[in-house]
């Protein structure tokens, strides 16, 4: 585990999480959640959990982003918070 890379990715993950829950548009929130999942995938690969990284990239980042975008297009992009 390379701790410098670990720290950088951790900071990016926290920034993405805060942005995903604070952005004023649901489609942006869905895309930011996808970016968050891909950064977590990098984090698992750094920590040596390559199987978890594969699963996160396909299921966590891919499928859940598609679910979120589909839900936003079936409902609305409007949000007050």
């Amino acid at each position, binding site marked *: *585990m390379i*701790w410098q890379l*670990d*720290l950088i990715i*951790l900071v990016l*993950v*926290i920034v993405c*999480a*805060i942005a*995903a*829950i604070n952005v004023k548009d*649901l489609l942006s*929130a*869905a895309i930011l*959640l996808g970016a*968050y*999942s891909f950064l*977590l995938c990098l*984090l*698992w690969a750094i*920590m*040596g*959990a*390559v*199987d*978890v990284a594969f*699963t*996160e990239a396909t*299921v*966590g980042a891919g*499928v*859940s982003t598609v*679910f*979120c975008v*589909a*839900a*936003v297009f*079936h*409902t*609305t992009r*409007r*949000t*007050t*918070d």
Partner: protein
Amino acid sequence: MDFLTVLISRANYWAYIILMMIGLYAMIAKNNLVKKIVGMSIFQTAVILFYVSIGAKQGATIPILLHGHAPETGGNLAHAATGHGTAAVQAVNYINPLPHVLMLTAIVVGVATLGVALALAIKVYKEYGTLEENEINQRLRRG
């Protein structure tokens, strides 16, 4: 060990606490249903980060055997399974794979939960025409 060393060497655990609090805050305080679901997803990945951090080890490699399997000794499986000879596995050189396997299941379950929650949010939108919790409560109180 001074404060900065402790802070850096436990960075994964601090990040896990921060992410869990972000998810909890979004689930409790946000007004939009999709924002609450996003918070739930962040909460789940925070737990996964905690478990994978338990298994992580400094100076160890991924849990795949370096030397291959024990050589075939004429079907003497009991002898080969004990790991005698050159093919003995040094557990200290490998990252613990048990939390990884547990969290593999947790990721898949998390996506299933997300799908069900988004399907329910779509049903709520079709019923009430909005995703804001206070507007849904107003509709419920009026009719």
